[in-house]
């Protein structure tokens, strides 16, 4: 299983960069996994880009004032799926119990996690000795 690690300075610019890198890796993966050329508008790529963007933005916005810990990003992939891990040293977050935004009410914040959970096939969170680890999986897009 090949994998690729990135370290992000905790700035929103870096979060953006991460999202863009994610999208291009996702494109490459799409071609390798399906053997097709990736369409310009691909749900798969969009989902990955969005989720990584959201996740990184989240960890950067929620980092404690003093600590300037970096955000670690890992991409892994096999035939079936594309895996992403986002690690940071922020306070523990209550991933599973954060309420989904009421989509019928007009609401300004709190879409981040919702987007991740809905766009990805699996999104799980764990806290391992001081690290928040968010593991995302998007299964390989079907050939058209």
């Amino acid at each position, binding site marked *: 299983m090949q994998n690729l690690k990135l370290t992000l300075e905790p700035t*929103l610019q870096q979060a953006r960069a991460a*999202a863009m890198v994610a999208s291009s890796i996702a494109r490459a993966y799409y071609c390798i996994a399906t053997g097709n050329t990736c369409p*310009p508008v691909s749900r798969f790529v969009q989902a990955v880009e*969005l989720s990584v963007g959201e996740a990184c933005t989240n960890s950067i916005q929620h980092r404690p004032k003093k600590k300037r810990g970096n955000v670690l990003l890992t991409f892994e992939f096999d035939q079936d799926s594309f895996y992403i891990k986002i690690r940071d040293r922020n306070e523990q977050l209550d991933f599973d119990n954060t309420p989904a935004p009421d989509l*019928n009410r007009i609401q300004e914040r709190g879409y981040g996690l*919702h987007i991740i959970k*809905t766009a990805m096939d699996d999104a799980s969170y764990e806290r391992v000795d001081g690290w928040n680890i968010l593991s995302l999986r998007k299964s390989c897009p079907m050939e058209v």
Partner: protein
Amino acid sequence: MTITKIITNDIAVITLQGRFDSAAADQFRKAVQHDFLPAHYVIEMEGVNYIDSGGLGCLVSLLRQAQKRSGTVKIARIPSKIFYAFELTRMNRIFDMYDDTGMAVNSFTATN
């Protein structure tokens, strides 16, 4: 993200280009804050290639402000590339979407 504004009798047409993500959020907020506030906004998004919850958040808060002044926000020329993000967050139900900017602008005058 580049932002251009054209304000004609209390309708602001805001044309966006580039990535509308959390990093661009402040820029957007600043851009829409100025002494004279129009009632209605049309956000022309043809040139936007990425939007995330940060960007969507901006649009919603703009809508909130507009509604306070009994105005509204409409979206024009939204590229299919970023439509997905709107669907994921059901934003497509909050904003009226037009595939033509002119029509979006006219729609205000039509309703008034």
